[in-house]
């Protein structure tokens, strides 16, 4: 088995193992026997397992994949180590519009959240793109603009939540990202997007490899760089937005997962994508499992835990980055 396959197999086993842990542990610990009998014929723990823990595990894995793939696409196009959907204001935009929709119409069907988030995510991305166009574009400038816009959008969310006090747990989702109370209903708005956009990102993988040579060289080699940029960034924005619609801004996953994957498997996008998707799924799932188990029955937002890991790494990147 090649080194790459071993890494993927290792990551996958780890993910399965973690899913099992996540299934057994929580405010109420379950024995192996209860879990197995419940999965087969239902029973006492039916609610905890089938309605509570199992959907959370699936949603954690899906959002992890979505955010990671979104990060790979963004970094591939912008060729900037600091680029990621949350640092570029995409998550902020998606979060703000999803949150607004929910506050205006609290009883709205949740399948409306992804379209709303898409609108916000695309507006934020467009704004940053125009800002970057207007000035002389540089990686540092792009990152700074993204951070400023993100901060502004987050403060808008804060303002909305202060105006309309809601239950703390639901508010937390829009501020830091959490999988609290996410049931099967939330999988359906998420899944179709991933089923279409994740394979599509594989379709772009080879062109993204060429894109790493710079727009000029890639263009000379026959890559339609403008079309590639639009397709990849639109997919990245869409993926990040629908993930945010379902569980808020789980920060730094879109930044960390592609970096870790690159470190493990090199710079070919065909290889990075599966590795990053696995890393993203592992990050979100472990964050959520920890969030449920650190102080039960209280729950931390998963986004806080990914930030604990992500923020120091971001500072490390800033420190290493020489393009200022």
């Amino acid at each position, binding site marked *: 088995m090649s080194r790459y396959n071993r890494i993927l197999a290792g990551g996958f086993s780890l993910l399965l193992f973690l899913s099992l842990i996540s299934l057994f542990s929580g405010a109420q610990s379950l024995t192996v026997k209860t879990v197995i009998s419940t999965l087969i014929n239902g029973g006492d723990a039916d609610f905890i397992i089938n309605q509570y823990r199992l959907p959370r595990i699936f949603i954690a894995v899906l959002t992890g994949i979505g955010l990671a793939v979104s990060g790979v696409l963004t970094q591939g196009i912008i060729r900037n180590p600091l680029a990621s959907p949350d640092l570029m204001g995409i998550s902020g935009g998606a979060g703000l519009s999803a949150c607004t929709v929910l506050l205006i119409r609290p009883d709205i069907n949740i399948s409306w959240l992804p379209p709303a988030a898409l609108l916000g995510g695309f507006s934020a991305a467009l704004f940053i793109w125009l800002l970057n166009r207007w000035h002389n574009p540089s990686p540092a400038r792009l990152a700074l603009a993204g951070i400023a816009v993100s901060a502004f959008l987050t403060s808008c969310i804060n303002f909305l939540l202060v105006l309309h006090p809601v239950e703390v747990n639901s508010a937390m989702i829009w501020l830091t990202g959490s999988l609290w109370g996410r049931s099967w209903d939330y999988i359906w708005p998420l899944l179709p997007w991933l089923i279409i956009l994740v394979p599509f990102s594989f379709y772009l993988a*080879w062109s993204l*490899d*060429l894109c790493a040579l710079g727009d*000029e*060289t890639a263009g*000379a*080699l*026959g*890559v339609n760089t403008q079309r590639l940029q639009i397709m990849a960034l639109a997919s990245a924005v869409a993926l990040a937005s629908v993930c945010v619609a379902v569980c808020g801004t789980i920060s730094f996953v879109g930044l960390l997962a592609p970096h870790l994957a690159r470190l493990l498997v090199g710079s070919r996008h065909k290889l990075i994508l599966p590795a990053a998707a696995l890393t993203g799924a592992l990050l979100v799932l472990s964050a959520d499992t920890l969030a449920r188990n650190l102080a039960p029955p209280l729950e931390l937002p998963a986004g806080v835990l990914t930030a604990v890991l992500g923020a120091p790494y971001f500072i490390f990147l800033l420190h290493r980055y020489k393009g200022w």
Partner: protein
Amino acid sequence: MLHIENLSVNYTGKTVLKDLNLTIPKGKITALIGPNGCGKSTLLKAISGGLKSATGQVTLAGRDLSRLNHKERARCLSILPQSPITPEGISVQQLVSFGRNPYLSQWGRLSAEDDQKVQQVIHQTGLSELAQRPVDTLSGGQRQRAWIAMILAQDTEYILLDEPTTYLDLTHQIELMEMIRQMNKQGKTLVVVLHDLNQACRYCDHLIVMRQGQISAQDSPDKIFNSRLLKEVFELNAMIINDPVANKPMCIPL
């Protein structure tokens, strides 16, 4: 033949190239020379279709290049920019395989023929032993050979090189110029931006001399390379002697 007609390029209101008309002779090595900022690189980019602000017409064997799509154009004409970005961790073989892109589908799967071509140019450029090494760990000369190998894998009739010798020491400059000569013997038409005028005269069949976005002269070195031209274009007082080895004109600054 590569014909350029009425080519103009404006960057933010400033005219960089003004109404250029020129012909790149087929099967020859053409050197593009001129002082810094005269528009040599811009001309190469405009020929290769990499500039949106270019107006005018570039025709290759009677075909208007602007009507071709990206891959079709990349099968006729390749260009190596002055300082291409070397991605971290990409091996020589991977880099060379990127040269096959114009012949591949969007998925980028290389056929047996593509693989064979890649191996052949790696061998031809003397990189066989370095094929698995990351490009960013190679020396300057080796790295430039890897880029040339990528361009050769692209297998185009016309090859444009933007200052390929700039960051090389003299030995590697000569090695590269010899490589260019070899490519030409295999039937390629080359256009090379050069700063070393003596190398341009020695290795190239045709000179295009540019100044301030316009063509000052274009012909073989024997016909146009003289002290008046150097004074006019480079504002340099120089004496022209005969290069005793290559039997070509050679300048010695006074």
